[in-house]
């Protein structure tokens, strides 16, 4: 059919010019074959290079040259996070991650912000449980400036008192006022805190009181100690060769960091029983519904079936939850699920917002969809779509600096390799429905404890939840937002 279509056409493309309809007259319009969907060719996975690994002092460099990309992606990782520094997240370490990148020893905050804008350099920093990160993207001709910025914010951030005060004000306002006023933010935070026990290192609750005690001098001392004791990894992805890169990195990073290994994640204790957290936000018309269950971790043989399971449960517009709750029932503008797999824990999360009158029905429909997956797995078409989507994402890796850097950062975070990742994508092609059904049974069967979070007007929700026979822990939005339950 494709050959026939090619032969039936006689129009030539032209360079950009004013349209000239008279120059393109058809011989006779012939209709294409619309009797069914045209055949699809492929996909074939593209070859992606493995990162080259180099050592410069304590810095381990992972370098990938990608021709033709305008920007270079840089990720500098300090391989110690809040758990290694003080045992758990604190407000001070939160401020350290948030404020890093505000100044350098030579530039005040306005000068640095201007430099970044004028040179088209994007910079973001964070400090998480086991790692700190500074992400930068820069046009390849401004690579040297971007590397200067990365090195100088790490070694020279001043944490000006004015910015620390502003951070404290913003943080307090977020924790006490604006966060608890948003249904979506409350639902997300409450689910997080219900999932992370307060006595676990990951479960340390935020504190406006502690945020008020954050001081510049302490932050500078923390930053210096953190940098001098952390193993460093730098990922560089872009159109730059190692011979160009090496002297630039040696001049800036050879003296930084410390020898050591990247820390490992901690396991989370399994929930003993289903928990339902109800958050009372009076006079809301909508209910935000969230649900989470444990899922396979990275490296688990069930991880790839779990990925396919999530994709078909709620990972795409066409997935089962959306098809049911949006397209069939019209309860919601959109429902979705996600699958997060870490080294030591994993989870499936379902999210949907509905009018309050549909709360009970929606919960029943969600459980019904989970049970269908437990009973029957997914169809051959759903599996084929999963394989093609995985391949499409793989083949789209080099779309821009962000997608390229994101892919290689995942490889690094997962202690993986391009070959291993390619193998995982390929393995989707041979998945069977039974593989997915097995994971569904493991994660979604009715006996598996769930964490539910329901945010809305208690008076409207209570009768519907009582009809389901659910025992609910009711909390205020203020308590829910900071895990005070």
């Amino acid at each position, binding site marked *: 059919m494709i050959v026939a279509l090619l032969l039936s056409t006689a129009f030539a493309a032209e360079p950009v010019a004013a349209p000239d309809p008279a120059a393109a007259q058809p011989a006779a319009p012939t209709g294409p074959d619309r009797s069914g969907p045209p055949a699809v060719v492929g996909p074939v996975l593209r070859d992606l290079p493995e990162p080259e690994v180099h050592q410069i002092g304590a810095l381990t460099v992972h370098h990938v040259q990608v021709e033709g*990309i305008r920007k270079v992606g840089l990720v500098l990782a300090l391989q110690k996070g809040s758990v290694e520094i003080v045992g758990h997240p604190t407000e001070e370490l939160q401020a350290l991650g948030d404020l890093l990148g505000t100044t350098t020893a030579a530039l005040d905050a306005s000068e640095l912000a201007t430099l970044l804008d004028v*040179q088209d350099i994007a910079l973001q920093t964070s400090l998480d449980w086991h790692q700190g990160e500074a992400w930068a993207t820069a046009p390849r001709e401004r690579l040297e400036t971007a590397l200067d910025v990365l090195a100088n914010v790490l070694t020279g951030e001043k944490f000006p008192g004015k910015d620390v005060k502003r951070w404290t004000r913003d943080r307090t306002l977020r924790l006490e006022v604006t966060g608890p006023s948003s249904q979506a933010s409350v639902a997300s935070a409450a689910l997080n805190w219900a999932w992370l026990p307060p006595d676990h290192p990951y479960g340390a609750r935020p504190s406006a009181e502690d945020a008020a005690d954050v001081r510049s001098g302490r932050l500078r001392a923390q930053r210096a100690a953190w940098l001098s004791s952390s193993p460093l990894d730098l990922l560089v992805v872009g159109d730059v060769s190692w011979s160009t890169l090496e002297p630039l990195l040696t001049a800036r990073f050879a003296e930084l960091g410390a020898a050591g290994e990247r820390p490992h994640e901690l396991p989370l204790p399994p929930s003993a029983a289903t928990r339902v957290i109800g958050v009372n936000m009076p006079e809301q018309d909508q209910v935000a519904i969230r649900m989470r269950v444990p899922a396979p971790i990275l490296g688990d043989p069930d991880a790839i079936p779990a990925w396919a399971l999530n994709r078909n449960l709620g990972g795409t517009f066409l997935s089962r939850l959306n098809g049911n709750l949006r397209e069939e029932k019209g309860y919601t503008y959109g429902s979705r699920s996600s699958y997060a797999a870490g080294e030591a824990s994993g989870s499936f999360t379902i999210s949907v917002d509905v009018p309050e009158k549909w709360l009970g029905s929606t919960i029943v429909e969600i459980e019904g969809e989970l049970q269908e997956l437990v009973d029957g797995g997914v169809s051959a078409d759903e599996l084929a779509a999963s394989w093609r989507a995985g391949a499409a994402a793989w083949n789209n890796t080099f779309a821009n*600096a962000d997608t390229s850097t994101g892919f290689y950062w995942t490889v690094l975070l997962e202690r993986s390799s391009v070959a291993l990742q390619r193998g995982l994508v390929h393995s989707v092609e041979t998945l069977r429905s039974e593989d997915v059904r097995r994971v569904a049974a493991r994660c979604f069967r009715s006996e598996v404890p769930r964490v539910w979070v329901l945010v809305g007007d208690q008076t409207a929700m209570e009768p519907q939840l009582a009809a389901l026979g659910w025992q609910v822990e009711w909390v205020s939005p203020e308590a829910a937002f900071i895990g005070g339950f």
Partner: protein
Amino acid sequence: MLWLALSALAAHPSTELVTHPTLTTLPNGLVVLLEENHRTDTVALHLTYGVGARDEQPGELGCAHLFEHLMFEGSEHVPTNKFDEWLTLAGGDNNAYTSEDVTAYHMTFPSGAADLGLFLESDRMGFLLSGITDENVANQRKVVLQERAEGYAEPNGRDWDALTRLVWPEDHPYHHPVIGTVADVEGFTAANTAAFWKAHYRPSNGVLALVGNFDSASMLAKVQAWYADVPEPEGAVGRVGKFEEGVKWLPANGYIEDDVEERSIYLAWRTVPVGHPDEPALDLLEQILSGGRGTRIDDRLYYDTTKATSVFAYHAVSEVGGVFIVAASSPDTLLDRLSKLITQEIGYIPQGLPTDAELERARESIRASWLDRLEDPASRAELLVECHRSTGRPDCLVDEWKRYTDVTADDLARVTKKYLDLETTVSLSVVPRGDPLFLLGAKPVELP
């Protein structure tokens, strides 16, 4: 080393903004833009129709947006639910959006699924209505109303629609919200919306761009084949609304109560449409006032003081007009005080002209946003369409950039005085329920 970089003017590779699309107009009037990009195996398709909320008449408010939904529900040769199913099965993805001026559909698919993507897209251009049932419409009515409800449920989720009603008078085509009114949306059926679709969804009202891993000649042949049987109805597409120079706008002062914990103030002024000679100066003014740390209003209200907890400026430019907005929020600073601080800073522009450094930073921020969009095939396809729609040339960026480099500090002073005239200010106060501290004299704004 950093100081050297800071003091050096940004030098640009001369080819950065150059694009190389081919342009073809099919016999049925569809404009087709093609550009090869072999870095990925993906094809990005972007199709914009010249129909938006401004084209709706009383009784059909929300119809353009409803069709954004219905276009995925099936067409004559694509049964209900098969559009997404077939595309997803091929590894593709898609979405759409509606504005006052346009409705745009975008897909990405592997290059081996090009025929499928074009089949689906061309079928709903040519043969949608026979696939649409009252059941489809009834379901999407519910989805649209829920979309509105979910948006309005979040803090500050009503602000834009409320501001729009104040900025544009009742007889202006931008007065009503893009999502429509509850009453009109509830009344939509397959029969009473068909005329709207027939009037606007046609090849000559569309611009189609494809960017990705293909050979242009082969892709053009496919496009020509798939659109060969899509008919162009007789008669021209009539569009509602036209920009008029020199209109004396009236001020307005309104408020809404919402489930918010902070008060917010929006100050807005009517400006110019896309392509107007003053558009670049107003865009640059936006950046100079509120382009991050070290810019005027951001420092005055947020970075150097604790007057506001958030602040932004935005020059929203559409086909029939533009609006320049400055907004700020605070839990404790009175809105009247915020309003005065903002207008003071705006007043300083003609007195203390922006420096060369301010202008350069503003320009570079705009250029960087274009370059980022050019890098990715999907946003590049969208940008080619935008260029073609606004200038008649898909490769407009080099000329567009010249419009921005030609702007001087005096131009900024001139447009500030001309458009950000305090006599025509539109103010919207957003306050917590029961809080009387909106701007003096503000009237409640009702959302239909």
